[in-house]
Structure formats: structure tokens, C-alpha cells
């Protein structure tokens, strides 16, 4: 066991650091800087172009497909070094690299790979995810948006329905889309996967007003949207397998956000307690902070174990969901504690106190972290079933034609 870089990893880290030092500062967002989302997305593309030009795009992606073909640990090292700069990274680029690329690489035709992969790595094409629907969230396979063949012999598909929670759909170029093409078979079997140009007539995105005040999620309405059959990924009826490829990427990618515990310790250490000491003298506070810190470290080292598995060619499977489950819950608790420690200053900070504003945002945002990318309850089921080997849920809808289900 060695937690440190080996010689090869150290050399890679040095190379990454040197390149980032030369190229990242020009792209960095200023602290507290508020920019319109159109500009954020544009700057995200610019950073993607910079990465591509420098050979840092698609690090673990096969060389033959335009990536660098490196091992998992090197991608982690680059992410760690890149994370030291506050760069314009977010769903507007990561859905492309983390979700669209894996599914295209695995299920796409050679033409689709040639068309999308390099363009995505360069930031020329950005992506959104058109999966969830108003009545299909954790039960994604219950989705009702449908596609039927156009009656004109073109082989095109006509899509009608509604998608929701599609991050950045209003500013991205293409979407990955799963729809129902055969309601006469059980629900998982009647799905088909497409890529869709977001400028296609009939697609309308409406921002959702979120509890955080931001609106990065959208409702996307699809009305008689025509998609050429060439944009189908995989065979008809194989949409669920494509979804699984995407969702596995989502799970593995989660859990690498800012921590929250160390700044909170600093806050407690620098805030008077009214008895001549600081808040860090309070035993109850110390215990809560220490527990949160121990959990956070456990998550970090658990991730390190998973990365080691990946680098040895093992599949962490549902173990990856454990990190996400632990992280999201702890994030909510930690940010809740952060507000509580601030007392009234937490609910009404002084003008210019951006740090407390960040904590408030994170506390609100932590709610969606426990829901998106595998809700707590879904992850607990998966851990129980796939790690512990416990029975699956009773499913009333499993072997029944979708069209006979109530909905």
C-alpha cells in the first residue's frame, strides 16, 4: 500500500502542474464573480479547447478515439491538480465528457464516433441529458416520452413528450435522449436511445425556478421533434443498456466537490464564544466537527480504494454508490452545522460576507445532491442488493406490457 505517487505518477503530476501553471490562470473565475450563464458556458468551452490543444482532454479515453488512453490514477491526478484552480467547469461540459462520450464510445456506430467524439473533447459540441420525466425519476424506465417512425418512409423518428431536470439544456448543442419506442413490451425493453440536436424544431426548453434561486435545470418539451434514424444509438429496444452506461459514469464521477469541514473548523477557531475563548472550545461542537471530518476523510480514502480497483481493471460496481450516498448526506449535515454555528449571522449575513452566502447555497444545494444521480433510497437498495446480495424489490411492473400499466 502506498498513498503517495509512484515515480511515474509523480512525473505525470509535475507535467500536469507545469502545464496548468502556464495555461489555467487565464481561465480562472474570480472569487465571488457572478457571470451570466451564457458567459459561463462560453468560458467552459474555451477551457475545453485549451485542454484539447494541450493534450489534456479525454485522458482515460482510448487513443484511437482521440483521447490520451491513460490509466485511471493519472486522470485523478490531473483532476486534483486542475481542481486547485477555480475554472469554468460544470455540467455544461461534464455531461459531454462524463456521460455522452462513454455512451457514444460504447454503443455508437463508427460514423457517430467520428462525428461527436473529437468535437466534444474540443468543446465544439456540448451536451445535456434528456432522461428524467415528471413521472419517471428514480423509476426512469417508466418514462413516457415516445418516438414513432415517421410515416413518410424516411426512417426518421417523431418524438413527443416532456423531459425534466435537463441541466443546461437551454445552452447546450446536443442532448442524449431516451424514449419509448415500443409500449407493447415490458418497460425496460421498449426503450431506444438517441442523440438529438437541440436546435431541432419542436424542442422548447423552459428554465425551472429552483429553491436555490438559480435555474440551471430545465423542463424540455418535445413536440413532433424529427430525429433521423442515423442519430439512434444502439439498436431499437436497447435504450436501457445505454442508460446504464451513462448512469455508471454519473455515479463514478460524483463525490469530488469541495469539502466544507476544514473551513468550518477554521471558522469555529476564529469566532469568539463569548466566554473568552473560541467556538472550537465547545466540546459538543468539537465532537460534531471531528465526526464530520472523520467521515470526510473516510470518503476520500474510500475513493482512493475505488480508484485503485479501477486501475487494476476491477469494477467497483455498487461500491461507487456508497461514496455518493455517504458524501451527499454528510454534505447536508456539514452545511447545516455551518449555518447553525454562525447563529443569526448564518441566516442574515452582513453585507459582503460571501463565505456565508456560499454555505447557504450549499445547504440548499445539498438537498438535490441526495436526489440526483441516484437518490439515497435507490443507492441503499443497490448496496443491499448488489453488495450484500439481498433480494430485489417486489416489482409489479416487471413482466407486464408497459401500455397496460397505470400511470
Amino acid at each position, binding site marked *: 500500500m502506498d498513498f503517495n505517487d509512484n515515480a511515474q505518477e509523480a512525473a505525470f503530476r509535475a507535467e500536469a502542474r507545469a502545464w496548468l501553471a502556464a495555461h489555467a490562470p487565464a481561465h480562472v473565475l474570480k472569487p465571488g464573480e457572478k457571470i451570466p450563464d451564457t458567459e459561463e458556458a462560453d468560458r467552459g468551452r474555451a477551457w475545453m479547447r485549451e485542454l484539447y490543444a494541450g493534450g489534456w482532454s479525454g485522458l482515460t479515453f482510448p487513443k484511437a478515439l482521440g483521447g490520451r488512453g491513460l490509466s485511471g490514477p493519472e486522470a485523478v491526478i490531473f483532476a486534483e491538480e486542475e481542481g486547485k484552480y477555480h475554472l469554468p467547469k460544470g455540467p455544461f461540459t461534464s455531461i459531454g465528457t462524463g456521460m455522452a462520450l462513454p455512451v457514444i464510445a460504447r454503443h455508437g456506430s463508427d460514423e457517430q464516433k467520428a462525428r461527436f467524439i473529437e468535437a466534444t473533447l474540443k468543446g465544439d459540441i456540448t451536451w445535456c441529458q434528456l432522461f428524467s420525466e415528471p413521472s419517471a425519476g428514480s423509476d426512469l424506465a417508466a418514462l413516457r416520452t415516445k418516438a414513432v417512425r415517421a410515416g413518410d418512409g424516411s426512417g426518421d423518428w417523431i418524438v413527443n413528450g416532456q423531459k425534466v431536470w435537463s441541466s443546461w439544456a437551454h445552452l447546450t448543442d446536443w442532448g442524449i435522449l431516451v424514449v419509448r419506442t415500443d409500449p407493447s413490451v415490458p418497460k425496460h425493453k421498449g426503450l431506444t436511445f438517441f442523440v438529438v440536436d437541440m436546435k431541432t424544431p419542436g424542442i422548447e426548453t423552459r428554465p425551472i425556478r429552483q429553491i436555490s434561486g438559480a435555474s440551471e435545470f430545465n423542463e424540455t418539451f418535445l413536440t413532433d421533434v424529427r430525429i433521423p434514424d442515423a442519430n439512434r444509438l444502439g439498436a431499437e429496444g436497447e435504450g436501457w443498456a445505454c442508460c446504464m452506461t451513462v448512469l455508471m459514469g454519473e455515479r463514478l464521477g460524483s463525490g469530488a466537490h469541495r469539502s466544507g469541514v476544514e473551513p468550518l473548523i477554521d471558522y469555529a477557531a476564529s469566532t469568539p464564544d463569548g466566554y473568552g475563548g473560541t467556538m472550537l472550545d465547545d466540546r459538543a461542537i468539537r465532537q460534531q466537527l471531528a465526526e464530520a471530518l*472523520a*467521515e470526510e476523510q473516510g470518503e476520500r480514502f474510500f475513493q482512493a480504494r475505488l480508484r*485503485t480497483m479501477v486501475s487494476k481493471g476491477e469494477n467497483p460496481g455498487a461500491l461507487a454508490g456508497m461514496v455518493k450516498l455517504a458524501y451527499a448526506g454528510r454534505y447536508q449535515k456539514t452545511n447545516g452545522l455551518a449555518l447553525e454555528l454562525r447563529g443569526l449571522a448564518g441566516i442574515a449575513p452582513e453585507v459582503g460576507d460571501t463565505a456565508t452566502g456560499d454555505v447557504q447555497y450549499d445547504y440548499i444545494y445539498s438537498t438535490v445532491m441526495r436526489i440526483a444521480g441516484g437518490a439515497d433510497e435507490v443507492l441503499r*437498495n443497490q448496496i443491499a442488493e448488489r453488495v450484500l446480495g439481498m433480494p430485489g424489490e417486489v416489482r409489479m411492473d416487471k413482466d407486464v406490457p408497459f401500455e397496460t400499466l397505470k400511470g
Partner: protein
Amino acid sequence: MNFDLSDEQKMLGEQARALLSDLSSFDRLRSLIDSGAEWDEPLWRALAEMGFLGAAIPEEHGGLGLGALDLGVIMEALGAANAAVPFTSSIILSAEAIRLAGSEAQKAAWLPKLASGESIATFAYAEGPGPVFATGATLAGGKLSGSKSPVADAGIADVAVVLVAGGGFALVELDQPGVTRTKLDSFDQLRAHYRLDFADAAAEAMPGTGKLDRLIDQAAVQAAFEAVGAAEACLHMARDYAMERQMFGRPLAGYQAIKHKLADVAVATELARSNAYYGGWAAESSPDDLPAAAAAARLSGIKCLELAARENLQVHGGIGYTFEANCHFYYRRERMLAVHLGNRGFWADRLLNAQPGSQGKAA
């Protein structure tokens, strides 16, 4: 980075588990309690024969000279079996205290005997209610005075390493007139505890000073491995029982109330294991990181085993409350492990004090 046990370490763990499943079954534990035995002596001899007792004792003193992670996989197996042996007292604490602070003569006198199992040592630190690492006992002119209580395994130990005033260690043989051992009523029925009274008992000072922190940090990492082993055993026991038990026409394990509970235990256990690995690595390779790593491992070890021991019994329902079911072994041991070496509050302090730039020591 390679954050996994080596193949040799995994094999060592398997050997330990195989030996323990042969010799330390639940029926064996029950018979030890019924016969009033303080420990499982045949198991101890078998552990000695396999070289496990001397795993981390230097080769020059009769051990194998292995590291903290090797010791950790053995501790994990001992925790899983809920073994009735003085491994923590004699090996993790006493042998290591002698290695860290003993004179060459003391090491030569005791380490080979502890490695072979010929002698047993215990580490005496608490002095009743109050601070867990207490220093009221005094050593002057080769005479030890004061009391230590409770002291695990003191009934079977030949020698004690005693924490004394000034923070140093004294070595005292227990079979002598100046030492009175009083057996206490131990909550963990498979780990006896004693009160030790010293009245001018003949004792030797250990020359090394300032070694307590290092000793208990290392022991905290090992305690975390033990807790992870025990927690995983509870998890599997609960899972297996729930798979078999039929309720309302289907296995109990099919209900989300049970699945989600055990998923939470599994997550807590894997987080604790991850912290234990890091602690073991830090103990071997990065001593500056050990204080924080040890405290995090200790805290998450306590947490996972507390959850696992409680929910294991709960999943068993009424049968879990019977002596014939096996949940109680872990349920009792968990409380012992949660407070030996200092409780949650003690290690929470240590974790915060180990943070870079921390000046915020609690009063």
C-alpha cells in the same frame, strides 16, 4: 498510488480467519462463558504457533518484523471472531510499549516471550473514573505505588506495563506480594478486567519518555481494524439471518426497512475500513500523518461497530435477545471497544488538535 492491501497481507488475513473459524466458533465462546474461563488459552497457543503474536515484533526479538497493516489484518480477523485472547493487551499495547520505550535489556527479556506467547503482558492506564490515561501511580526507587483500574486481562498476565506519574512507563511483574489483583465484573464476558493495587511493588522504569501518544495512536489504528472486522461480522450475520427468516410470505431481507439499515451499516464499515487503511499506512510510512489518521480511524471504527452491533441484534428480533443467538457477543464487546483507549470525545479532541494550524485545544 496503490491504496489496497498487498497479496501477502490478504493471504495473512485469510490464514487468520481460517484459524479463528476453526478454533473460535460461537459455540466455543459460549462454552468459555459457561465455564467461567477468562480466555481461550488453546487459541492463544495456536496464534503463537502461526507467528501471529510476533507479527510486528522485530525479528531480532523473536518476531516477524511485519508492519501495522499486517497486524491490522490479524486484528480484523480477531474482531470478526470476537476472540477471547489478550492480543490488544499483550501485543498491541504492551509489546509495542516495550519496543518503543524499553531498554535493550527489557526488550531482550520480554519481547521474545511475548512473541512466543510464553508470557502475557497487559497495559495498565486507567485509574477509575476520570481521565482515561491517568498518571496517579508513582514509581520511585524501583517501587511502584498506586492503583490501576480497570485493567484488561490482568488475571492472566505475567507482567504489566504501567502508565505512571510523568507520563512514563513502569514494568511490573504481577506475581509478587506488593501487587493485589481484584477481579471486576466485566461487561464483556469474554474479556476479564481487574483492579490492580500496587503497594511498593518491585518495578522497573522504562527509559524511553514521551512515547504514550505514539503508542495509543498506533493502538487506535489497530482498534479500528478490530472494529471493522467485528462490524462486518455483524453485518453478515444480520444479512444471513434476514435472508433465511420468512416474514409475511417472503424473506425478511426483502424489506427496505432491513435493506436500508444494513446498507447504512455497510457504508459506515467501508468508510471505517478506508480510514483504518490510511492509518495503517501512516503508521508504517508517514508518521507525521499518524495522529490525524489514527483519530479518524478510531472515530469511524467506533461509529461503524456501534451501528452494526445494535442493528444486528435488532434484525434478529426476539431471538437476538437470547444467549443461544450470537448477537450478544458483539453487543457487549462493542461497548468495551468503544471506551477502551479513550472514548469518542477523547479522540474527537485528538483529531481536531492534529489539524494543521489548530490552536483550539479544548480546556
